[in-house]
C-alpha cells in the first residue's frame, strides 16, 4: 500500500538526517575530532528510517555498527535528544553513555536502544533474553536486532534463530544485506547470497525486501511488527541494500555496481522521485527538508564539540554494581 504524502515527507526527512549525520561524522573523523573507528550507514538510510518509524520506546533494538542513524532517529523521536548520539561518537560527557561506549556501544534504554556489541552478532543471543522476559510477562513488545550479512557466519545467528523459533519469541531480525562483509562478497562467504534462504529452515516467516525503497521497507517492517505484537513469534526481514563506504583504502567494487547503487538506486533519490510523483509537493519544499536536516546535524556536531570530556572519575566508575572497582 503506497504511503501518503505526509508519511513520505517524514521518512524523507529522517533519511536525510541519517545521511547528513554520516557525512558530517565522516568530515569530522577526517579532521581528527572523532576518535576510534568509523563505519557509516550511507546508502542504508531507508532501512534505518523504516525501523525507527515502527519501533516504540517500550520495544527494544540492538543496533549494529552502521546504525548511527537509527540510534539518532530513535533518540530524537522518543527523547528529542538526537545530539546525544553525536556527542557519544565524539566521546563526550553529554553522550548517551557519557563517552564510554562510542560509535560501537551507544545505548539508551529509555528510547529502546539496548546498545551495540562490537563483536558482530553477539547480541543475537542477548535479544533472545529480552524477548523471553517479555513473553513470560505477556508484554506485546518487539525485541529487534539489526545485523549485517557478515553476521550470518556467526554461530549465534543459528543458535538465535533456532531458539527464537522453538520458543516463539517476539524477535524481529532485521538483516541488512549490503553485499559485503568488509571486503568479502556475501555469495563467497555463505551458502546463499540471499540470507532468507538460510534463515527459512528455522521455520519462521522470512521476507526479502528492497531495502532502498522506503515504501517497501516501511511496509515490510509494519507487517513484521504486527505479526510479532500479535504473539505469532519471530520474523526475519532481509533488506537488500548497499553501503557507500568502501574499504579504508578506497573503493574496491566494480564501477558498474557503484554506479547502479549510487545513481540509479539511491534510497534518497528514489524517495524524492516518489514525493514529486504525487504532484502535491513543490521541489523547493523538498529541497527545504534536505537543507533543514543538514542544518540540524551541524547543530548536533557543534553541540558535541562544545561538550565537556568525561571527568576522570568515570574511568573507574560502574565496573561493578554497588562496588568500587579494585584499585590494583
Amino acid at each position: 500500500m503506497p504511503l501518503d504524502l505526509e508519511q513520505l515527507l517524514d521518512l524523507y526527512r529522517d533519511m536525510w538526517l541519517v545521511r547528513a549525520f554520516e557525512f558530517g561524522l565522516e568530515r569530522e573523523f577526517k579532521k581528527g575530532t572523532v576518535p576510534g573507528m568509523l563505519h557509516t550507514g550511507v546508502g542504508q538510510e531507508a532501512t534505518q528510517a523504516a525501523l525507527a518509524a515502527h519501533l516504540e520506546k517500550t520495544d527494544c533494538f540492538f543496533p549494529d555498527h552502521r546504525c548511527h542513524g537509527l540510534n539518532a532517529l530513535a533518540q530524537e523521536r522518543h527523547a528529542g535528544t538526537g545530539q546525544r548520539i553525536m556527542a557519544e561518537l565524539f566521546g563526550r560527557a553529554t553522550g548517551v553513555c557519557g563517552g564510554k561506549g562510542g560509535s560501537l556501544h551507544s545505548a539508551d534504554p529509555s528510547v529502546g536502544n539496548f546498545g551495540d556489541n562490537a563483536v558482530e552478532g553477539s547480541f543475537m543471543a542477548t535479544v533472545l533474553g529480552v524477548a523471553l522476559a517479555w513473553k513470560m510477562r505477556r508484554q506485546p513488545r518487539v525485541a529487534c536486532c539489526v545485523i549485517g550479512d557478515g553476521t550470518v557466519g556467526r554461530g549465534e545467528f543459528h543458535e538465535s534463530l533456532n531458539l527464537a523459533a522453538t520458543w516463539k519469541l517476539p524477535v524481529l531480525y532485521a538483516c541488512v544485506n549490503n553485499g559485503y562483509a568488509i571486503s568479502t562478497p556475501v555469495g563467497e562467504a555463505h551458502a546463499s547470497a540471499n540470507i532468507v534462504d538460510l534463515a527459512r529452515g528455522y521455520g519462521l516467516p522470512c521476507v526479502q525486501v528492497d531495502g532502498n525503497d522506503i515504501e517497501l521497507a516501511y511496509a515490510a517492517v509494519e507487517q513484521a511488527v504486527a505479526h510479532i505484537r500479535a504473539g505469532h513469534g519471530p520474523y526475519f526481514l532481509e533488506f537488500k541494500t548497499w553501503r557507500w563506504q568502501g574499504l579504508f583504502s578506497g573503493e574496491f567494487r566494480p564501477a558498474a555496481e557503484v554506479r547502479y547503487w549510487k545513481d540509479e538506486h539511491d534510497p534518497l533519490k528514489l524517495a524524492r522521485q516518489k514525493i514529486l510523483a504525487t504532484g502535491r509537493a513543490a521541489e523547493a519544499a523538498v529541497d527545504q527538508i534536505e537543507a533543514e536536516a543538514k542544518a540540524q546535524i551541524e547543530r548536533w556536531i557543534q553541540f558535541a564539540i562544545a561538550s565537556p570530556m568525561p571527568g576522570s572519575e568515570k574511568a573507574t566508575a560502574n565496573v561493578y554494581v554497588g562496588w568500587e572497582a579494585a584499585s590494583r
Partner: protein
Amino acid sequence: MTAPTAPARTRTFVQALTEALDLMMAEDENVYLLGEDIGRMGGDFGVTRGLFEKYGAERVRDTPLSEAAIVGTAVGSAMVGMRPVAEIMFADFLGECYDQLVNNAAKLHYMFDGQFKAPIVVRTACGGGFGGGPHHSQSVEGWFLNVPGLVIVGPATPADAKGLLVASIADDNPVLFLEHKALYRVKGPVPEGKYAVPLRQAAVSRPGRDLTIVAYLKMTPEALAAAEVLAKDGIEAEVIDLRTLRPWDTDTVLSSVRRTGRAVVASEAPRMGGLAADVSATIAEECWSDLKAPVGRVGALDTPIPFSLVLEKIILPGRDQIVQAARQVLGAQPVA
C-alpha cells in the same frame, strides 16, 4: 538475610544448592533457570531435581546445546529485570559462551555507563579427579580472572554452597559460580531456610599460628587434610578458603600472612597465569617485611588433563603436595 538462624541439618553439596535455588525461586518470580537437561532430568548432577515439577517448564527451561544462546538469553533477560540462573553442564564448555560472559555480561554495566546491569548467575561443574578426561575436568577460573566486571565464586562446603548461591542470585553483578564435581556428594551441616554468605569474603576454615594456607574449591578440604598431617608435627596451619575468587578477599589473606609470616597458596589449576599466582604476588607485594620465607605455590602440572586415573593423579595436586610445600616454606630460613 545474612547469618543463618535456623538449626543445621546434614545435607549434600548438591542438596544445598537445590535448596538455594528453590528458596530464591519461591521468593521472586523473576528468578528462573535455563540450561541443558535441567528440567525433567534435573541436571547432569541433579542440582535442579524437583524444581521442574514445582515451578514448571516456563521457569525451569531446557535448552538445546547452545551455550552462547543460554548465556545470551540470561544476559538479555537480566537487562529487563529478570534474575536468571543458567547452568552450563561442564565448565569446559564455557569456551562456547566465553564471549557472552567476557564481552557482554561483564562489560554491560561499564560500557553503557551504568544504564544496564546483568544480574545473572552461571553455574557450572568444574574440576577433575574422576577420569573425566580433557574436556570434562578442567579448572577454568584462570580463563576469567582477567575480566573486570565479572564475579567468580567457588564454594568448598555444603553450607557455603547454599549461602553463596543465595548471595550470588541476589547480587546485581554477573556471577560465574563454580561447583567442583568432587564436592557434589560431600555431606555437611546446612542451616535451614534462607541465609546469604557474603560475596568477596574469605573464611578462616581452620585457625593457626605457624603458616597460612590459602585454598579454594576442592583444595580447601585438601588443605584441611594437610593441616591435620602438619598438626601431628606440632605445626598449626591456618587454612583460608577464598570462597569468592574474583575479586578475592585481600584483607583476610594479608592479615593472616602478616601474623603467620609464611604462606602456601593452593589451586587445582595449572600454576601459569592462575589465581594462585595472583594471590602469591599480592602477598609478596604487601607482606614483604612480614614474610619469613618465599610464598609456596601448589598447582597442577602444566598439561591438559588425561583420561587415565593413574596419569591424572600425577598431574592434579592434593593434600600431599600441600604438606610438601608447607614443609618447604617452614624449613626456609628467614631472610636476614
